């Protein structure tokens, strides 16, 4: 079974600064996806970024980037030039990858979340 650990329950940072959220995971799988989801006060779960484990290049999406260290089983999220709208809970999640006919029935395993507050 997979486990995902987010060791920072809460973080805060000044607007426009850079913040890094930590995530570690444990798995015996070699092929998988990792995700960061954002949950603002509206409760909606929003996909921020996805990383395929077989890719060495770190994923980026505008101000969001990851530092994926496969050997260390670490997957941190960096938010640059933080904005007030980035205030939210952030969840790290793991999904096994299947190359054959069973695409689509993967299940996400989530961490417990980090509550991020951007201070004006």
């Amino acid at each position, binding site marked *: 079974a997979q486990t995902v650990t987010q060791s920072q329950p809460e973080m805060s940072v000044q607007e426009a600064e850079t913040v890094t959220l930590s995530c570690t995971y444990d798995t015996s799988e070699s092929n998988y996806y990792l995700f960061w989801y954002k949950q603002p006060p509206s409760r909606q779960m929003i996909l921020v970024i996805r990383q395929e484990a077989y890719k060495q290049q770190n994923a980026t999406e505008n101000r969001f980037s990851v530092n994926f260290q496969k050997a260390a089983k670490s997957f941190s999220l960096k938010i640059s030039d933080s904005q007030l709208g980035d205030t939210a809970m952030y969840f790290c999640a793991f999904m096994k990858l299947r190359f054959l006919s069973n*695409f*689509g*029935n*993967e*299940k996400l395993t989530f961490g*417990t979340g980090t509550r991020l507050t951007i201070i004006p």
Partner: protein
Amino acid sequence: DAGITQSPRHKVTETGTPVTLRCHQTENHRYMYWYRQDPGHGLRLIHYSYGVKDTDKGEVSDGYSVSRSKTEDFLLTLESATSSQTSVYFCAISESYRGGEKLFFGSGTQLSVL
């Protein structure tokens, strides 16, 4: 939002009563999921479906049942609600994207069992 609608958005019920939550999708996705969210636990999988009438259990399935008689609807039923089932419930669908998969979530249902 990948065409996912959850209903109701909020519900308050009493212990021992049956409750059904509905997830409706408009884009013909094969795979659908029910998660619950609780403080300190993140999101945990209750049940999932990989087609009409094809369902399976997740990690916290006790006290819950599901049904999927049509591709677009995935129902979650609490046969006899308990206070421990007070939670936020999310439906999700799995969508192919550039050769991989992503999960997209509905807006959630806040359920309070008194």
